[in-house]
């Protein structure tokens, strides 16, 4: 009995103190959860705003003390035990215990897994050279920032949002930048062709070299340091440093080993419940098998899933049904996305990309499913209704910028 009492345990343990984990802990208290809560995260910092890393923080425009998601006394004031710099290594659902990287065992009533993902790493020859950077957390970003003053040239591997945001900022510092993308256009995983071509042009206009349909064969080095990138096109691009942004691998191994269903992340239902009793999963590492059927990497998704899981733990089963949205800032371009374009079968351009202000509307079977709005907040806010209602609107009206989307909703 005494021994039992001495063992550490919490009514709810949240693994990962990023966007999802922080929101889950805060929401549990908001919804009146009276039990004990521990928020355990591998990073040494208090929960912070991750998107700013590849934006204002990298640019030196925002100091880290302005990036905390909550004030530093928030957690203790709400009786949430925040354990930083600790990794959860094992989950044992039968004894409802987790094991930390210092070998301590901690028992849980409910578990919310919000561990995000780790950057997909290069595996080609030369991947261990120094001078190769990823941008997932503050430590990564600080290492890059420290290396930048000595670097005249950089190669960004991967033409996704993080790589392109970094490229834009490096250009601001005057660094020579080449972006290498394996597919035939930038942002190919996330955006339609007109958006890709627009960003390609903008980056070129700002002096970024771009190589499309170019695979990385190996990393060239000198004295243990990166000196360039060899492409499968035969070209070698000299570079003082590399930034790799080729996606993430969801951090879910302990859950999969524990028997949770999944593969690309852990599968969850519309209440963020995994196949294991009392274990929930939210954010970048959760794959919602019902509804959207996919894994989404965004702050909105992590926050709203965290709220869904916290509700469920408090006994209120409310299915996750938020309309996804996302943003990216490059140069003076603000991209705002509403909806998910997965499976689109047509796109309609609203406005002229040459004006640097336009939207791309994604359609599926005649209904509006998503919009990418570039320097076009009006379409972003008004397009939300179209996405929410799955509006069927004829393409000519959608393309007509003299008509506002608000008016089209009413039609």
């Amino acid at each position, binding site marked *: 009995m005494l021994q039992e009492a001495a063992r550490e345990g919490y009514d709810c343990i949240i693994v990962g103190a990023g966007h999802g984990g922080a929101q889950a802990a*805060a929401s549990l208290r*908001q919804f009146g959860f009276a039990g004990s809560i521990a928020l355990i995260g591998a990073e040494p910092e208090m929960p912070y*705003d991750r*998107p*700013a890393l590849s*934006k*204002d923080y990298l640019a030196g425009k925002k100091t880290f003390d*302005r*990036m*905390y998601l*909550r*004030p530093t*006394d*928030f957690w203790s*004031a709400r009786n949430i035990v925040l354990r930083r710099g600790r990794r959860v290594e094992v989950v044992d659902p039968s004894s409802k215990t987790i094991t930390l990287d210092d070998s301590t065992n901690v028992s849980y009533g409910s578990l919310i897994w919000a561990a995000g993902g780790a950057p997909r790493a290069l595996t080609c020859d030369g991947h261990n050279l120094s001078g190769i950077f990823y941008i997932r957390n503050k430590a990564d970003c600080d290492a890059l920032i420290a290396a930048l003053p000595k670097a005249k040239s950089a190669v960004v591997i991967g033409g996704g949002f993080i790589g392109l945001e970094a490229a834009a900022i490096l250009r601001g510092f005057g660094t020579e930048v080449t972006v290498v993308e394996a597919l035939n256009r930038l942002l190919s995983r996330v955006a339609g062709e007109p958006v890709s071509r627009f960003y390609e042009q903008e980056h070129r206009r700002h002096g970024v070299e771009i190589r499309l349909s170019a695979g990385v064969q190996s990393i060239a080095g000198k004295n243990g340091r990166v000196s360039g990138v060899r492409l499968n096109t035969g070209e070698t691009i000299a570079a003082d440093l590399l930034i790799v942004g080729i996606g993430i691998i969801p951090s879910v191994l302990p859950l999969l080993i524990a028997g949770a269903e999944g593969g690309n992340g852990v599968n969850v239902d519309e209440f963020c419940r995994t196949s294991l009793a009392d274990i929930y999963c939210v954010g970048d590492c959760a794959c919602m098998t019902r509804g959207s059927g996919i894994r989404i990497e965004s*702050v*909105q998704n992590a*926050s709203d899933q965290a709220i869904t899981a916290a509700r469920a733990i408090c006994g209120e089963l409310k299915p996750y049904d938020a309309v996804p*949205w996302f*943003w990216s*800032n490059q140069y003076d371009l*603000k991209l*705002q996305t509403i909806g998910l374009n997965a499976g689109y079968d047509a796109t309609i351009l609203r406005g002229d990309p040459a004006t640097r202000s336009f939207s791309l509307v994604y359609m599926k079977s005649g209904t509006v499913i998503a919009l990418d709005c570039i*320097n076009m*907040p*009006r379409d*972003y*806010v*008004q397009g*939300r209704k179209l996405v929410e209602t799955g509006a069927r609107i004829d393409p000519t009206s959608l393309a007509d910028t003299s008509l506002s989307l608000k008016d089209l909703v009413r039609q």
Partner: protein
Amino acid sequence: MTTITLKTRDGSVHEFEGREGRSLMENIRDAGFEELVAMCGGCMSCATCHVYIDNVPADVKLPPMSVDEDELLDGSDYRQPSSRLSCQVPLVAALRGIAVTIAPED
């Protein structure tokens, strides 16, 4: 230090010392008022930091609203003439006695 008077959605009124040089959004967030979601961290991409500015000293003008801020606010069903995105309003010493209400959630 500039005192901020904040009315939250339950109608209760709070007073706290704000930090100049930071936005109103950062001040409200850092005082622990979590109902101001501010999901984009202040980069004017989300409109989840919507407030009403109820009172500013008569001799002070808030920085004008940009077209983008205006359009983002237009997406709210609760827009009023006093609406602002709080991440776009820096707190300056002249704003002593500023009174703010967190707008309803859209």
